[in-house]
């Protein structure tokens, strides 16, 4: 999806603003969003690719002005509602409750006793390498070209690196494929490579001198040969 989240090479966002002595969380709700995201993932309600694509589908103007945890909240909420884990109506009702009762704690709105929880897999985010008999098509040093593709759905081939020539730098093993895994299409694991691009290939005459970019790319993003 060629959305505003795909920021590589974009201009106009001004200088980087560093916050001196930045706190771990700017407010308690940020930690709650982090806990919610982790619980949903660890309990298998969504995978990391569905989560990321949930954020990518935010309203673009909201994406650009939202803070990190606001993006997470928006994305997690979208996914939980889409999957039917949370009903839009019950969510709206709870929001209304907490707007009417700004001092209430989350447990104050819980109906009935807390149920037992389903088992969790805390390593869910990194659990992406699969042992398969796939043999990598490319080896370090091979010239490749990325596909010119603009899929409507989730992809991890950034827009700035489409249709570009690069060189295989390293083989990372066989990894779950986000483009299918984000859309209920299964893990379909593929060889993953670190691919090196010269900045001139990516940015043409506007490139800074003496620069390369490495991007981790799945095999099906790549065509053989740099022609």
């Amino acid at each position, binding site marked *: 999806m060629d959305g505003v989240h*795909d920021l590589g*090479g974009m201009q106009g966002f001004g200088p*980087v603003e560093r916050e001196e002595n930045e706190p771990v969380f700017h407010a*308690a709700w940020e930690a709650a969003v982090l806990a919610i995201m982790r619980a949903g993932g660890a*309990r298998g309600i969504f995978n990391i690719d569905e989560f990321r694509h949930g954020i990518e589908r935010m309203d673009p103007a909201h994406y650009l002005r939202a803070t990190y945890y606001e993006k997470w909240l928006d994305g997690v909420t979208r996914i939980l509602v889409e999957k039917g884990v*949370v009903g839009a109506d019950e969510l709206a009702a709870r929001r209304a409750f907490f707007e009417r009762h700004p001092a209430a704690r989350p447990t104050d709105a819980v109906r009935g006793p807390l*149920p037992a929880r389903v088992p969790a897999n805390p390593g869910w985010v990194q659990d992406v390498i699969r042992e398969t008999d796939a043999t990598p098509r490319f080896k370090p040093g091979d010239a490749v070209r990325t596909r010119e593709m603009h899929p409507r759905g989730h992809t991890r081939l950034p827009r*700035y690196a489409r249709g570009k020539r690069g060189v295989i730098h390293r083989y990372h093993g066989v990894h779950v494929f986000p483009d299918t895994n984000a859309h209920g299409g299964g893990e379909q694991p593929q060889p993953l490579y670190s691919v090196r691009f010269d900045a001139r290939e990516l940015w043409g005459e506007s490139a800074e001198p003496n620069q*390369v970019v490495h991007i981790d790319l799945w095999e099906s993003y790549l065509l053989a040969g740099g022609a």
Partner: protein
Amino acid sequence: MGKNHPNVDPYVVSRVRALESLLLEKGILAPDAVDRVIQRYENDTGPMVGARAVAKAWTDPDYRRLLLTDSRAALRYFDLDYAMLMVVENTEAVHNLVVCTLCSCYPWPVLGLPPTWYKMPAYRSRAVSEPRALLGEMGLTVDPRREIRVWDSSAEMRYMVLPQRPAGTEGLGEHALIPLITRDALIGVAEVRPPAPATR
């Protein structure tokens, strides 16, 4: 809070509480999950594993080799089992820089929570296309003869920079080096500086 927190939705707190209460009720969120997150990160005030690994690599050539070639084995030394880290080495010829243009991927297990600027559009947009200008604005001038290698974290592999050990630290041991090694140096937006002379 400046541009990094331009417009927090005034209803965000009630939205979070609503979701939190529903997920508690449905047995998805543990009652102590939020407190544990806060404890885990707000009380995690010791040095990052990343800094400890770099200090060790600076003082132990075998460990340095291990960190660069088999980071999983190297991180086990600090009781961390983490299989996804690639450590990239700064040299006289190469400066490395880590970014995630598509979202905000970051090596949490070794560096902790990412700083806000790492997650905002200004950094994510320019790190791949004009890193030298960007680093200059952030206070780091990279010699034009050094290649800048940008690592765009587009998959689950995570990247950490092994910075150059600064001149003037020859007399320091591993533990004295650790506090010099900043998060920013491990991302690649700063160099490690020698300790400031003691003020009298």
